């Protein structure tokens, strides 16, 4: 919504009475203008923003007004709220208190037919529906504010916000209001919307979730009622019961259990049939067997009106297994969810040149429109401004610039591109405008392909879970043999008792706790890890990380920060403002290094600044000609400074500064170690890991970094090409578990070859796709937490398995001896499952790290 739309035409802002409780955070001010309240000490003139409570900069204070704003975004938001009669927002205790920043975008692309084709569904009632991913959603007041958009934008019928996933479901009348108007409103409130790209997957998932919940609910209701009937029967068994009532309860149990097994329990039968058809023994096989045999024997006994029935155990079993499976499924989605999020945050729109070749500028027909990224087609011409992220793969048609490829390659150094160069979606144009002819867009782009691999990796089934299934296969074979033995032993004495004991054995050893033990512990651990910024894609990674072995660390970007920093400087102080003057407007990483190194230095003003590709930068500062750049470039037009040429460390990139044709200063840029690197490496070593550096940098640089980390010289391998890295990792993997941690495409092959590959924050998508674990927080601290969390997870799993096997062993022995009454079976079975559930849930696995608080709070 634009400012003009929301300003009250007849009532100037200054005369708008502030509602009670409005404005300052210590609530109060009954009709008193907030500005005059005592205690408002912050800000230039002691004035706080009416909307967000931040101090108002001196230049923004309007002495005559009763309401004050720190920025235009807050002003817009206040106007929207006031216009809609929504001042109640200011009385919410939990409202956002960070300044609202409106991006001011037009969101024109949301009205394009191609966008509607892709994302918008039209209902039969004439309303359109779309899902938008909102940035900055975090609390109750966000829900309140977003869901009241229909009050202020006519034609919008309903907005519903899912606060956990930041998804807003919007229903609106496309004939009355364009979607872009709604998007501008949301943007003005501080929630920039992005089209949500996982709509189709979301539909499938929602359907699955609902079916699963229905099954669990039905199975649960039946289990509880069968338990009630069983309670009556067991008390009757203790205290005596009339046969008529007993028959009643047995029949009720039979009917209910049959329903439970035929409806929610059917998934186990179909699963078991599928496994048998594949000639494997799946966990579903023993479960289905126990369910079917138990039901058949129980039904026969009910009809015969004598002998034990097993219905309570069966109904409970169905319920517990379904619940366990649901939990497992939710845990496995954590990684897929994060990939979905990445999808939604990739650039959603691009500037497309239309009517090209018909003259540029005012008089020509050529014009630039914003289109949704999904609507881009090969052959379109894109206008990419400096600072824009590319939305599609393509070839540069005109212009030359430098691109930041870090997202794809992990390479921190920008790459120069010229006409004819291939550029990729997700990379950032740093220096100058470009025109790019689209070659691949949407789902076929390199970025989308990589993201898809990440998603598939996330859905891949954990090998530990598969191992539990194999274990179950052996387990069920053992149980079947034991059942046969039981029948053989008891057959001489009493054929009927033999069958009963065998069935009791089948039911009581049904690997319920065993089936839950591993997946539950893994899914709880993976979920906790994800909430601390560690995305684990398979349970097998956790298993292998739990035992110390060899760990290879890539240097650039993993151990170091992966960006250029000024590490060495020789030259007079008066040169600094001159250098900053030139570099202040540049996006080059070395310029960034200068700015970070001298935050306190005020840059002078420069004019006539010119970039020279591959050389440096030149301009007039305070009337003096200043050149900053590579030694070759600077020496072209300057002399002297020979004593400055010798930089002590060969690992540093040299930069010279010349003023009026005289070399006056020299700088060396390097890649500093991460702050927590030494501490984390020491921690890993004390945990028993052998830590080695494996880098493409020159051996001298790698050894120097290794020395600072406290690593022996033979553990610092430098000058390794990607092929060498692969070779080293493969060789080491022959002798045991190898963990590879890296961030770039040059590490991707080694990451894939290692027993466990770990991609680190800010790394290339390629390394994310092949990695088993992705660390979403910077620094090596996350690696330490991962390794220690994995160890604790395996301890929980081992405890679970030992417990469930012990339980099964005892129960099987009792059943074979004919000592197991169905009552004990009914008590022991849920109790064992419950113990495993509680142990998994309460077990300490991943501890929250020192991650920063959510942005915006």
């Amino acid at each position, binding site marked *: 919504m634009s400012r003009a739309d929301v300003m009250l035409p007849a009532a100037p802002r200054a005369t708008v009475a502030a509602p009670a409780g409005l404005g300052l955070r210590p609530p109060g001010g009954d009709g008193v203008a907030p500005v005059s309240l005592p205690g408002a000490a912050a800000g230039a003139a002691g004035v706080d923003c009416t909307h967000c409570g931040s101090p108002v900069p001196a230049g923004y204070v309007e002495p005559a007004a009763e309401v004050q704003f720190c920025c235009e975004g807050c002003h817009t938001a206040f106007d929207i709220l006031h216009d*809609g009669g929504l001042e109640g927002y200011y009385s919410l205790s939990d409202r956002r208190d960070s300044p609202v920043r409106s991006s001011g975008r037009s969101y024109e692309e949301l009205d394009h037919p191609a966008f509607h084709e892709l994302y918008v569904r039209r209902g039969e009632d004439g309303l359109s529906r779309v899902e938008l991913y909102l940035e900055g959603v975090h609390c109750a007041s966000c829900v309140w504010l977003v869901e009241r958009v229909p009050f202020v934008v006519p034609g919008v*019928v309903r907005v*519903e*916000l*899912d606060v956990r996933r930041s998804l807003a479901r919007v229903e609106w009348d496309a004939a009355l209001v364009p979607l872009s108007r709604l998007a501008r409103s949301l943007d003005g409130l501080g929630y920039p919307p992005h089209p949500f790209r996982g709509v189709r997957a979301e539909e499938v998932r929602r359907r699955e*979730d*609902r079916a699963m919940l*229905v099954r669990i609910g039905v199975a649960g*209701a039946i289990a509880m009622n069968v338990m009630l009937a069983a309670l009556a029967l067991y008390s009757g068994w203790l205290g005596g019961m009339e046969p008529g009532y007993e028959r009643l309860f047995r029949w009720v149990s039979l009917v209910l259990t049959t329903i439970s097994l035929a409806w929610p329990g059917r998934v186990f039968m179909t699963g078991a049939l599928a496994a048998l058809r594949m000639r494997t023994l799946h966990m579903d096989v023993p479960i289905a067997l126990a369910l079917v045999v138990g039901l058949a024997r129980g039904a026969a006994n009910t009809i015969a009106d004598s002998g034990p029935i097993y219905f309570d155990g069966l109904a409970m079993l169905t319920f517990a297994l379904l619940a366990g499976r649901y939990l497992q499924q939710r845990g496995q989605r954590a990684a897929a969810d994060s990939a979905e999020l990445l999808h939604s945050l990739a650039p959603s729109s691009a500037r497309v040149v239309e009517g090209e070749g018909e003259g540029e500028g005012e008089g020509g027909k050529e014009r630039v429109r914003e289109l949704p990224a999904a609507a881009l087609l090969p052959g379109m011409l894109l206008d990419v401004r400096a600072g824009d992220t590319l939305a599609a793969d393509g070839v540069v048609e005109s212009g030359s610039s430098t691109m930041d490829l870090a997202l794809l390659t992990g390479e921190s150094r920008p790459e120069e591109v010229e006409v004819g160069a291939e550029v990729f979606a997700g990379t950032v144009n740093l220096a100058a405008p470009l025109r790019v002819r689209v070659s691949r867009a949407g789902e076929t782009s390199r970025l989308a392909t990589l993201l898809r691999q990440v998603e598939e990796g996330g859905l891949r089934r954990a090998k530990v879970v598969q191992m539990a299934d194999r274990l179950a296969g052996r387990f069920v074979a053992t149980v079947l043999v034991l059942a046969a033995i039981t029948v053989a032993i008891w057959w001489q004495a009493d054929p009927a008792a033999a069958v009963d004991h065998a069935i009791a054995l089948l039911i009581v050893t049904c690997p319920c706790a065993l089936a839950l033990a591993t997946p539950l512990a893994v899914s709880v651990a993976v979920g906790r890890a994800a909430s601390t910024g560690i995305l684990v894609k398979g349970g097998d990674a956790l298993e292998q990380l739990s035992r110390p072995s060899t760990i290879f660390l890539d240097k650039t970007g993993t151990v170091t920060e992966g960006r250029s920093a000024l590490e060495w400087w020789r030259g007079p102080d008066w040169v600094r403002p001159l250098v900053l003057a030139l570099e202040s407007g540049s996006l080059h990483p070395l310029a960034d290094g200068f700015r970070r190194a001298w935050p306190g230095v005020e840059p002078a003003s420069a004019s006539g600044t010119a970039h020279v590709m591959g050389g440096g930068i030149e301009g007039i500062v305070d009337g003096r000609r200043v050149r900053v750049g590579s030694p070759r470039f600077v020496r072209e037009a300057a002399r002297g400074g020979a004593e400055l040429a010798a930089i002590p460390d060969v690992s540093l990139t040299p930069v010279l500064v010349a003023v009026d044709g005289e070399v006056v200063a020299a700088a060396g840029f390097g890649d500093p170690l991460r702050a927590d690197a030494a501490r984390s490496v020491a921690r890993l070593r004390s945990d028993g890991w052998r830590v080695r550096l494996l880098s493409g940098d020159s051996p001298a640089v790698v050894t120097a970094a290794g020395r600072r980390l406290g690593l022996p010289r033979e553990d610092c391998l430098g000058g390794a090409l990607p092929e060498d890295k692969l070779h080293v990792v493969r060789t080491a993997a022959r002798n045991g578990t190898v963990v590879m941690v890296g961030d770039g495409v040059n590490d991707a092959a080694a990451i894939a070859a290692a027993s466990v590959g770990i991609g680190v924050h800010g790394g290339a998508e390629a390394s994310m796709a092949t990695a088993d674990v992705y660390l979403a927080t910077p620094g090596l601290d996350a690696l330490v937490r991962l390794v220690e969390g994995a160890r604790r997870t395996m301890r929980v799993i081992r405890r679970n398995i030992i417990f469930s096997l012990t339980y099964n062993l005892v129960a099987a022995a009792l059943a074979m001896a004919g000592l197991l009454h169905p009552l004990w079976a009914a008590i022991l079975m849920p109790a064992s499952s419950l113990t495993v559930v509680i142990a998994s849930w309460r077990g300490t696995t991943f501890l929250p790290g020192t991650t920063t608080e959510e942005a915006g709070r």
Partner: protein
Amino acid sequence: MSVLYLVVPLAMLMVAVAVAAYVWATRSGQLDDLDTPPLRMLHDDEPRPPARR
């Protein structure tokens, strides 16, 4: 005690009704999002401004 023959089937019937209600609620999406509604109920209802739509 013979009332049991009447009461137990009646109880089963009530369970059936409850299960049917649960199934309906799930299928109509009321259990899709368990995080937002508890926040939403904290807000007071306000009369919708007339003629805004």
